[in-house]
Every structure is written in C-alpha cells, then in structure tokens.
C-alpha cells in the first residue's frame, strides 16, 4: 500500500496517481482521463484497504456488544468520528453526525430543525446556485408547514447578489441554506461573510459543503456556520456515508428525526428517553465500514494538505479556463469571481450530451446535463452544460486531452 505524500513534500501528481489504480484502466480502448470528480471522486488504495481491513478483521455491530470485535468496531467507528471532528475543527464529537450523505444531512435538518422551528409564514432563504438536494427538502418543509422559500438571485457570471441577499434577511427568516461551492458553475460563495450577515439577525445558516471539502480547508468554527453537510464520496471516501456537523446547542434542542435502536437511552411502553448526542440522530445500525473509509479518506487528504490541494487545483482550473477561452466556439457558463472544483461550458449549439458521448469515446469522462441544478439552467436559459471537474490526481495533460477534440466537435456539428 502506498502511503500518501507528506504535506511538506513537493507536489507530485504522478506519485498521487499511483494511489488510484482505477486511473490506469482504459475506456473504449483509450487511457481514462477522469474529469468528473464533482460527481464522485475516485478512491485511493488506502481508503479501499481501510474498509477491507475492517470488513475482514474487525467487523461487528457498534455500541452494544461486550465482545472484543464489537469493541474494536466501536473504536474504529468512533475513531472516524474524531478524525472528522478534527478535519472540520468542530468543538466536540457530539457535533458530528454520521449520515448517508449530504442529501440525508439536509433532510435531517429540514425534518428535525425545520419541523420544530419553522412554521406558517416563516421564511427560509436559499440561493439560486443550489443543488436540488438543498432546494427540495426546503420545498417539502414549506409545503408541510406553510413556510415560504426566498431565493437569493445570481448574476450572469454565476455570483450571488450580496445586496439582494441582505435585503432578504428579516425577522421572519428562520434559516439560510447555502452552498459553499456550486456544483454546476464552480462558484465559491463568500460563506463566511454571508453567515455573519445572517447572524446579525440571529438566523442560523446551513452550508452545503458537498463540493467544498475536497478542495478547500473547512473550519466550522472559523466559518461560524450552524450546520455543515458533506458526502464521503466527494472526498475520496466511500459512497453511502456523509456527515452533518451541527452546533451542539442547536442539536440539543432539536427532536430526533428517525426513531429506532441506538438513538434511545431507554424504551418502555410508558415512554422513551432519547440517547445523547450524537447518537440521538443515528437510529439503527450505521454504515460502520463506510465511516472507517471516510476516516481513511480524511487521513489521505490531510496528508496531502488542503492548502497544497487547493493550490494544485487552482492551477489546473486556471489552465482549463485559459485553454477553453482560446477556442472560438467554446462558451464558458459561469465566470464566478472565485472558482473551485469545476468549469461548465458549451460548444456552439452542440448539445452537452453529444459532447459527453464523443469525449467518452476518447476515454474522457466529464458530466453533461443540468447537474441537479435546474434552476441555474433556467436562469441562464440553457438546458444543460458540459462540466469538467478536477481532483488531486488530475494534470495539465488531462486538460489538454479534454480540450484537444473540442474544435473538431464544433466543426462536426456546425450548422
């Protein structure tokens, strides 16, 4: 097994690529060029091995067995929680809830916090840059409670209108739900300032960090956010595991969402008392090996260093934007003030699905579609975009591979 490169070492992408065996496979007879990390990141050997080792040597249920395996499994699971706490710089592991992913994290907040704290006529502020998973749970809550959804508008460049945002905040606003980085356009929102603005009105803020945690260091205390949600599989970890960070005082006051085993202190037909944090929100047997894999993923990115990752990716994105800008028929979709993770583009009138299929034939994996962000597409008056997104393993050669066939595609489809 390859140990990750220490943070102090010179950045060596070729060395990092060796940690990801999938990158050496072929697609349609061509070497794979993976530029779809915003959909899911590939997993390094260390993550796969951590899950494998757990499954083969420590597997048992957590928090209940007296036998050794159960103690080991509990230790591994809670060890992963501590790694995540440190990763986010949360004050306590009581604030770190394991969930299935970002979507479940947001649904937890909308069902628990939302149902108990948000009523008819109250307002929830979301932004026009949100993924469907940070829109639909709030629409469902609004439908249940009679609350109203207010939307922060955005500019053609894909930046949120900060003035309009501040005007939306008022005495009826109960929550701001905001993406850290847009999955569709790559916009990095000024979340710290936006959280501060909400807090002036004592409004809590949920940050959807799905697209951020793999690209930038996140410190929940420095951000001062109230909830922060992310998925393991966009951080080089497994699917089916994710995290909801919640400020302890808020989580304490919130009712449980799902009921069942593990989330109770005692159960009787005369009444049930709930377990303490974080277990109050973890009903049923959790995804134990997934959490172990997520812990290993956190180790992996920390060993590379978030600052070094951010610098590497900023370099790649600058290069990608520059190369795309050189091609006449290519139009960038979204030119945000600060970009992270992804670049969306169109080629002339060519439908993004045709771009995606042709690139796939060349072994190049990108995403084509509305990126589960239809309101953005509607706002920009386009049905879909082609999106290239980067990770620690990408190189400028990958960008060159992507860009090279684009003029030919334009010519092929020219009307």
């Amino acid at each position, binding site marked *: 097994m390859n140990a990750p490169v220490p943070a102090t070492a010179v950045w060596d992408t070729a060395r990092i690529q060796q940690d990801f065996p999938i990158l050496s496979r072929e697609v349609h007879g061509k070497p794979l060029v993976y530029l779809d990390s915003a959909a899911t990141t590939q997993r390094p050997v260390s993550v796969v091995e951590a899950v494998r080792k757990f499954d083969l040597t420590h597997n048992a249920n957590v928090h209940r067995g007296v036998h050794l395996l159960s103690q080991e499994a509990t230790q591994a699971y809670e060890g992963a929680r501590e790694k995540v706490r440190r990763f986010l710089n949360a004050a306590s592991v009581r604030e770190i809830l394991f969930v299935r992913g970002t979507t479940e994290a947001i649904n937890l907040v909308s069902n628990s916090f939302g149902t108990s704290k948000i009523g008819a006529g109250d307002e929830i502020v979301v932004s026009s840059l949100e993924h469907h998973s940070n829109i639909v749970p709030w629409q469902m809550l609004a439908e249940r409670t009679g609350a109203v959804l207010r939307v922060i508008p955005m500019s053609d460049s894909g930046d949120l209108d900060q003035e309009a945002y501040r005007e939306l905040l008022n005495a009826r606003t109960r929550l701001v739900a905001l993406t850290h980085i847009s999955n569709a356009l790559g916009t990095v929102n000024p979340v710290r300032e936006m959280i501060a603005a909400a807090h002036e009105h004592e409004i809590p803020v949920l940050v959807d960090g799905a697209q951020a945690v793999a690209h930038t260091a996140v410190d929940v205390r420095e951000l001062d956010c109230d909830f922060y949600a992310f998925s393991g599989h966009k951080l080089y970890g497994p699917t089916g595991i994710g995290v909801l960070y919640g400020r302890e005082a808020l989580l304490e006051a919130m009712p449980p969402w799902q009921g069942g085993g593990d989330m109770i202190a005692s159960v009787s037909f005369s009444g049930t008392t709930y377990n303490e944090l974080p277990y109050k929100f973890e009903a049923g047997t959790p995804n134990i090996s997934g959490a172990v894999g997520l812990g290993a993923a956190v180790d992996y990115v920390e060993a590379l260093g978030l600052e070094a990752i951010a610098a590497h990716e900023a370099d790649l994105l600058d290069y990608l934007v520059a190369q795309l800008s050189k091609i006449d028929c290519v139009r960038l979709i979204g030119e945000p003030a600060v970009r992270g993770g992804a670049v969306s583009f169109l080629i002339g009138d060519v439908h*993004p*699905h045709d771009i995606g299929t042709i690139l796939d034939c060349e072994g190049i994996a990108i995403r084509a579609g509305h990126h589960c962000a*239809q309101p953005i597409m509607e706002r920009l008056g386009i*049905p879909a975009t082609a999106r290239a997104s980067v990770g620690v393993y990408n190189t400028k050669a990958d960008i060159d591979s992507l860009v090279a066939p684009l003029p030919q595609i334009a010519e092929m489809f020219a009307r």
Partner: protein
Amino acid sequence: MSMLELYQEVILDHNKSPRNFRDMDCASHKACGKNPLCGDELDLFLNIEDGVIQDVSFTGTGCAISVASASLLTEKLKGRTVTDAEAIYREVHMMLTGESDVDPAELGKLAVLSGVCQFPVRVKCASLAWHTMHAALQDRSEDVSTE
C-alpha cells in the same frame, strides 16, 4: 463502436437541418415528449385523413440523436398508413434496444440509428420521438418520457 458509427453523416445532417421542423395548425393528432434529465423536449404533430398520415412535423430542442431521430421519423412516416406507422414504431423500438437485427430494406435510412443500442444511456434520446408519435396516434394527452 466508435463515435463515427454513432454520429453518422445522416444523423449530423438531420441535426443540422431537421426536416419538417415546424408547427402544424391543422394537426389531427399531437403529443409532447419530455426527457427532463436530458432537457430534451419535442412536440410532435400528425395530420391523419382516412387512416393515412398526410403530414407530420415536430418542434423542440434536444441532442443530435434526439433531433435527428425525430427528423428521420417525419420523413419516414409521411404518406404512410397508421398501420404502417405502428409497425415501423415496433421495428425501430426493437432496433434501438438491440432486441432484433435491423432489416435495412424495411427501415431504410432509419438504420443509421442502429448504432445507438451500443450506447445504452443514449437509447432514450433516439426513442423519444417514436414513443411520442405512438402516444399521439393513441390520443394520449399526458407527456411522454423515455427516461
């Protein structure tokens, strides 16, 4: 399977210059096809008199496969009987899903769509117009989707 087999000249041509790409005021039958995940949307119009398709047209937006398939459909069906149209619909459906070998004599130019079955995620693009036409013939009013 290479991209050139999928994006044959006929498909590129019908995408660039879709045939019968227009509204139809006097349509006797029409239906709307939508694949929301793709963003493909098309309205398909038929004017049928005495069991014969006198005119057929479409409007909408979509990828090259979806637009070309709709355009080829209109070319193929104009002047044919409704019974013929249903039979062709069944053959195209089988061709796109790879359930049977294409009889080029029967399908003619439509055979260029046969490469689509090698790209499972794109079958829905090529089949949207055909399912929409089928729904129009049956006077079904709800939107059609192949996703």
